[in-house]
């Protein structure tokens, strides 16, 4: 008895169907868990006073879970093509695979764009989020309590070897003038 006779087509179909169910259930579970985690994080972000940034991060996290679940479901689609018996099932499979592939592509692109935006907002100090945070905490909006907006850049020592600020005799230089040459009246 050959291997093909012993392990018939129906047995192969059963095995592949079980594998498809397992892989597809894993994908669905990942998507569901991602949605639940996103909802819980959203609830925490909604309760705590925060700016707009947590919502963008929440979208990013949910998108990552969707992409991971889609990868599993695409794997199940590929497995299913091994045992699709008729044209209707093949057409449905092609439609689902096209939908999942397109969504996977667009989600990946959106995650990249959103990540770049979040990084740009963080680099720029996120004025919208800062305004929202300032509005939510009145103590932080007072000038005494607010941290300095930007520290002056580290000054390089002057070319003549004097210490920055000119010692204790002259007035301190205003911020932002550290790299400039000293005024003419203070030259020796």
């Amino acid at each position: 008895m050959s291997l093909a006779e012993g392990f018939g087509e129906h047995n192969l179909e059963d095995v592949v169907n079980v594998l498809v169910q397992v892989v597809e259930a894993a994908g669905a579970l990942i998507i569901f868990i991602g949605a639940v985690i996103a909802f819980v994080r959203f609830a925490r972000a909604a309760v705590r006073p925060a700016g707009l940034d947590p919502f963008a991060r929440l979208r990013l996290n949910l998108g990552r879970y969707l992409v991971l679940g889609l990868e599993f479901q695409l794997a199940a689609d590929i497995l299913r093509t091994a045992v699709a018996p008729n044209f209707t099932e093949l057409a449905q499979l092609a439609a689902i695979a096209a939908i999942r592939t397109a969504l996977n592509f667009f989600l990946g692109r959106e995650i990249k764009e959103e990540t770049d935006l979040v990084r740009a907002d963080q680099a720029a100090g996120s004025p919208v989020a800062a305004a929202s945070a300032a509005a939510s905490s009145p103590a932080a909006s007072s000038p005494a309590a607010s941290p300095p907006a930007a520290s002056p850049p580290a000054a390089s020592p002057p070319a003549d070897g004097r210490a920055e600020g000119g010692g204790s005799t002259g007035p301190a230089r205003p911020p932002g003038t550290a790299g400039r040459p000293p005024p003419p009246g203070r030259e020796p």
Partner: protein
Amino acid sequence: MITAVTDDAALIVTAGGLLTAAVALARTRRASMAVALLLDFLAAAALLRLAVSPPSWPAIGAAAVVIVIRQLASRALAAARAVRHR
């Protein structure tokens, strides 16, 4: 059995998405953020509904419509945000 589970899961995700979008709109007063969140949750629900075998043509069509709407809205929101950032 699996169909019932995925249908229930899709319903839960849809309800969570509606709640999330409503609270996000109330908190941030930004409709674009609320719509983007709602569309992400709806896409997750559509993917859960597709994870049944054998899938039906109405489920495939509904998922396609959700994803096309999601894509159009996402493009429009991104364009609006780019204009606002300028």
